[in-house]
Each structure stands twice: as C-alpha cells, then as structure tokens.
C-alpha cells in the first residue's frame, strides 16, 4: 500500500469508527427517551410501564379539577369515554387547559394508580384536539364530551 493510500485508509477507518460511536450513542439515547402513548383504558388495563415516563391523553372530566388551597398541586381526571384516570400535577396549567378539553400529560404511574405528571400539554387552539386523543375516543368525540 502506498503511503497516500495508507493515510486515506486511516482517515476512513477513523471516520467509520467515529460515526459508529455516534450511532451507538444516538440509538442508546433514543431507546432511553422514547415515550409511548397510552389511552386511559390501556392504563387501567395495566399496559403502562411502571418505572418509565409515558404519555396519556384524554378529555378533562367536568367537575374533577381540584386545586390544593395551600400550594400549586392540582388533581383532575381524564377520560377516553371508556375509562377514567386521575392525574396529579404541581404547577401552572397551560392557558388552554379547561374542563372538557383534550389534553396530554407526560409522567409516570404511581402505585396508587394516579399518574404524576411532569408536564401537561393543551394545544394553542380552542378547536384543536391532540390527534392521539382524537384517535382513542369513540367516533363522535369532542362536542358530546362537554
């Protein structure tokens, strides 16, 4: 092998190794941070992971939003019209969070069956329904949920 070729080979090997390491890191990070979405009925059926964040979505059930008078804890129920689960969150809810509105929460399942949310998402448009939520509802959704 000529020296030029040797150097070129070295460069290519280094690049392949570098990209390989990057790919491994990427896929590892990917696996660790992938979150599945579950509808309340799937959570009730015990499909949601116990020690990993996941996303759950549904309509906020009327009359279930309860704020703690002393701090920023809030509890509310969300439903897919089949099952209902309770979500606990601490902090300020998004502007468009309202009863009857479709929302998505990210968090984990407590042993009590309550979902402790790290984040609650409601979208920026009053006509908007997160597609995941729309898909997990029976066919005629939003209007009748209110």
């Amino acid at each position, binding site marked *: 092998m000529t020296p030029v070729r040797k150097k070129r080979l070295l*460069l290519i090997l280094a690049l392949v190794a570098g990209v390989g390491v990057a790919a491994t890191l990427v896929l590892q990070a990917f696996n660790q941070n992938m979150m599945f979405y579950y509808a309340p009925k799937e959570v009730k059926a015990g499909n949601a992971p116990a020690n990993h964040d996941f996303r759950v979505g549904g309509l906020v059930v009327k009359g279930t939003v309860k704020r703690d008078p002393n701090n920023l804890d809030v509890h509310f129920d969300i439903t897919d019209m089949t099952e209902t689960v309770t979500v606990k969150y*601490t*902090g*300020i809810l998004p502007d468009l969070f309202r009863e009857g509105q479709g929302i998505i929460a990210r968090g984990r399942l407590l042993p009590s069956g309550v979902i402790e949310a790290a984040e609650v998402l409601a979208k920026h448009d009053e006509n908007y329904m997160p597609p995941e939520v729309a898909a997990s509802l029976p066919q005629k959704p939003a209007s009748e949920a209110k």
Partner: protein
Amino acid sequence: MIPEIGHFALILALVVAVVQTAVPLLGSALGNPRWIGLAKPATRLQLLFMVIAYACLTYAFITHDFSVKYVASNSHTTMPLLYRVSGVWGAHEGSLLLWALILSLWAVSVSVFSRSIPAVMLARVLGVMGFVAVGFLLFLLVTSNPFERLLPAPADGRSLNPLLQDPGLAIHPPMLYMGYVGFSVAFAFAVAAMLGGKLDAAWTRWVRPWTNIAWMFLTLGIALGSWWAYYELGWGGWWFWDPVENASLMPWLVGTALIHSLAVSEKRGAFKAWTVLLAVFAFSLSLLGTFLVRSGVLTSVHAFASDPGRGLFILLFLVTVVGLSLTLYAFRAKQFTSNVSFQLFSRETGLLLNNVILVVMAATILLGTLYPLVMDALGIGKISVGPPYFNSVIVPLGIPLVMVMGLGVLLRWKRDSISRLGTDLILLVIVALGVGLLFSLLLRYDWEVMAAVGLVMAMWIAATTVFSAWRQKRTASVWGAALAHTGMAITIIGISLTSLYSSEKDVRLSAGQQYQMAGYAFQFQGVKKVSETAFDAYQGTVDITRDGQPVSHMEPQKRVYKVQTMPMTEAGIDAGLFRDLFVALGEPLEGGAWSLRLYHKPFIRWIWLGGIFMAVGGLLAATDRRYRLKLRRAGNA
C-alpha cells in the same frame, strides 16, 4: 372581482412555470438557443403573475373581503393594518402562496445577478426552479386555493390566531421561507451541474453567494422563531425540540455543511460529488420541513391543516424531487470524482470532519423527528421522543465539532504539520483554557463543570478565529467567516449559561407577598382587569428589587382575545445583556392569590445575538469581490 384576478394570475403563473421548466431544459438538452433564451423572460413573467396573485390576496385582507374564505378565517375588522398584511401568511394557503412568491423572487434574482453565467447553465438552473414552482403552484391550485369564495360572505372574520398577532412573528415566516426556498438555488445549480456533467471552480463561485444568503435568512428565521417562542408562548424556553423547530434546524445544519464543503470544492476542487449531494439534501430537507409543517402530521402550533390530501401531495412531490435528483446523481456523480490529494493533517480534513459531524447531527434529528411518525403511520404505536434524547446526542457531537472548528481555521490547505503551528497552537489552547476558566470563575453562580466546558469551547473558537483572521489577508470572505464563527462562540456561551444557571419557579402569591429567587425579590402587588380593543385581560403588577434597589416594574397579562375567546399569556420580561427576568401570570387561586411563574435567565440574549452575528457573517462573505470579478472573467471567456 379582485380575488378572481388573483386566482387567474395564479393559474397563469402555473402555465408560465410549465413553460419555464420544459422549454429551457429541452432547449439545453437539444442545443436550441431560442428555447434556451426563453428561460429568462419566462422566469420574469412568472414573477409578474405571482406578484399580481399575492397583491390580490393582500388587497382582500386590507379591504376586509370576507367573501374570500381564507380572509374570513384569518382576519377581522378590528385587526390593525400590520396584522392584516402579515395575516396573508398567517395560515396554510397564504403561507404557501408566499413560499411560491419567494421561489419566484429567488429565480428572478438569479437571472438578474448572474448575467455572466453561460446561457445553457442559466437555462438549466431556471428550468429546475421552474419545476419546483410547478409543484408548489399545482399544490396551491389543487388542494389549497387561497382565493376560494365563501358565499354568503360572513359579516366579520374569525380573526388571526392571537399568537400570531405579534410583530416578531409577522417577520418570522418570511425570513424562514427566504432561507428554505433560498436553498432551491443551490439545489437548482447542483442539478444543472449534473445535467451538464461539469462542475468547476467557476460553478462553486456562482453557488456560494446564493447559498450564503439563503443560509443567512434561515439563521435569522430560526433565531426569530426561538425568540418568539421565548416571549410569546410564555414558556420561557428558547428551544423545545418541537418537530417544527427540528424541521428548520435540519436544513440549517446541512446548509452549514454545504457552505464549508463548497469552500473545499472552490479552493481545492475536491469534495465535488459530496457538495452536489449536500445541495440536494439541504433543499430536500427544506421541502421535508414544509411537508412536516403543512401536512398536519405534526401536533404543533404550526400545524394549521389536517387535510390528508395535502400531506399526500407534498409527500409525493418530495419523493419526486428527491428521487429524480438522486437518480441523476447515481448516473452523474462519477464525473465529479476528483483526484486531488490532501494529507491527513490539513484544512480539507478539518472541513471533512465538520461535514461529517454536521450531517450526523442532522441525521440524528431526522431520526428523532420521523421515527414517531413512521411508527404511527405503520400502526405500531404512538410514541414521542423527548428533548432529553436530542440534548444527550447533540451536546457530545457539538464538542468535537467545536474543537475541529477552532483547529480547522488554523490549518493550511493540502498539507500542514503540528510543528508549523507549534507554539501558536499551544498559546491558543492556553488562552482558550485560561480565559474560559477565568470567565467561569468570575460568574456569580456556583461553578459547574459543563459551564466551564462551554466557556472554554467558546473561547477556543473566539481565540482561533481572531488569530487566523489576523494572520490572513482580510477579504470579505475572511471577515464573514470570522464573524459567523464569533457568532457561534456567542451562541454557545448563551446556551451553556442559560441551560445551567436558569432558575424557574411556579409560586403561589397573594397581593403584597414576595418571593426571593437568584438574588432578586419579586413583589406581587395584585391583579386588576384591563380592556383593549382586541382583548380583555387580567393584569398583574410585580415589582422586582435587588438588595432593596428597584430593578424592574412588570405588568404581565393573562389575555382573553375577544373574537376567538382564546386565552393567552403575555409575560413580563426585563431584558438585559447578562440576564432576563421573566414573570408570567398563571391562574387565580382560592383566597385571592394567583399562581405566577418566575424565571431568571442568565445570558439568554446571547443565543440570539450570536445568531445575528452568524447571519451578518454569512451576508458579508457573500459580498466578496472575487465572486463578481471571476464572474466577469467567466463571462468574457
């Protein structure tokens, strides 16, 4: 009547675009000079019709013509003139019209400023741009006609989404589109080179200024979007790894790689096939971005429409563009192989590494953005990939990128050695380490290793940039590169310090209570109701003091827009070069208290300041005299 003229002009623009595509491309293949000569007038005629169509829609907005469905959905009699003009691109149809108009503007600019480009080359470039225009105009006319009538006309419109009624957002989409669509010029030149089978240094000098300017707009567009999300969405963050943000970052990363790869192609005649491929990818990713944003596959503030027909159309168009150009590449790339040799320790290697890392970054983001969509489309499951994924991948890739960035500017083309750099290199490393560490120790926050790493990285870029600019003949290109690299250093400082030292707290406060954070006392004075034309609002009053000295008086609002009955948070922000204070009003709680969100964000302005430096650098480099001089020489030849 006026909307019909607009609609008609749009149809004529499509017809002209078909001519602009077919005749010059055929002419250049058959060597027919009259057909080739048709490229320029067709391009200009298309712009004329696009301007007429666009002006008609704007006119409908300004005159409140609610018989036009698009106007009725996105305007209102109470909206000020500014938002009636910017409302044109406030939703799906109009923003696509703007896309097509900008494409036409770029094509005409190419035809005006590239007078010395050989006629055949120019015909091919304009033909390819015409092809892209055909795709978008068809899309507009078939699936998203902005001039569709709504009869009987409603008495008033549904108004523009309140989030978009903001000066920052009024200019964000045009900037972003100028960048997205601007890459169509590099793309068209790449395809033209493949069609012609020739790619020389002159070609790179034609492409470089266009790529730089497109990149400048994209940089500004992304920075504006980030800034807008920060102050308008009320979330206090500056980047969310939202798929739509990713859609703009991917072409930026590949475009950045393209700028650097073009440098190698120009100076050394190497990496030519790779440059062409990057040009194809940069524009394909711009198209993908448009697809992601406009098709409704994403759940995002940007996803206006969820009409599957539209998504399918753009997807098909994307597949056509990528498929055709990659097929062409497969046949023609061999002609671009270069026998230019370079040593391992050379500027070429530095730029190669730069390209590899940037492309891996883009691929990583692509994986995280598309994988959930693919899983969903295949019915496997609904998943999402959170910000921790992107952060944990981009940061470790960014560190070697920055190291190469600093070393690369020091290296000579073709062959260099550590011994030549010798003491200079050691000195620069010491300066970067010393100043970076000193900076991290002088901060009035707890010392953090990652903050020190970020600052050393930034100083490494700054030191090497200044050193190499000082050593070189300072042309506009060198100044531009130096400014852009300095901008990167500034942005890195901003990102590192904001990410590590921000304080954020949701608190419950009654009138008269205060909360201490990061050395500042936030005194809540209560809430009153205010009313404006467009909205009613609760307005809180917060006085911020530090060591008893008044710092800022804020009036954050919680607005409800009247027409759309949509609530919106208008945060109170006290901006500063070294820190922002940010107060958002939450919701009323029992006993007259309110929830408030308080932030202290050190150095956040540096993130966007760096973006401005980068953009100015890109523009400056595009003005280099050699692009014009060589053009004239090429013209005489």
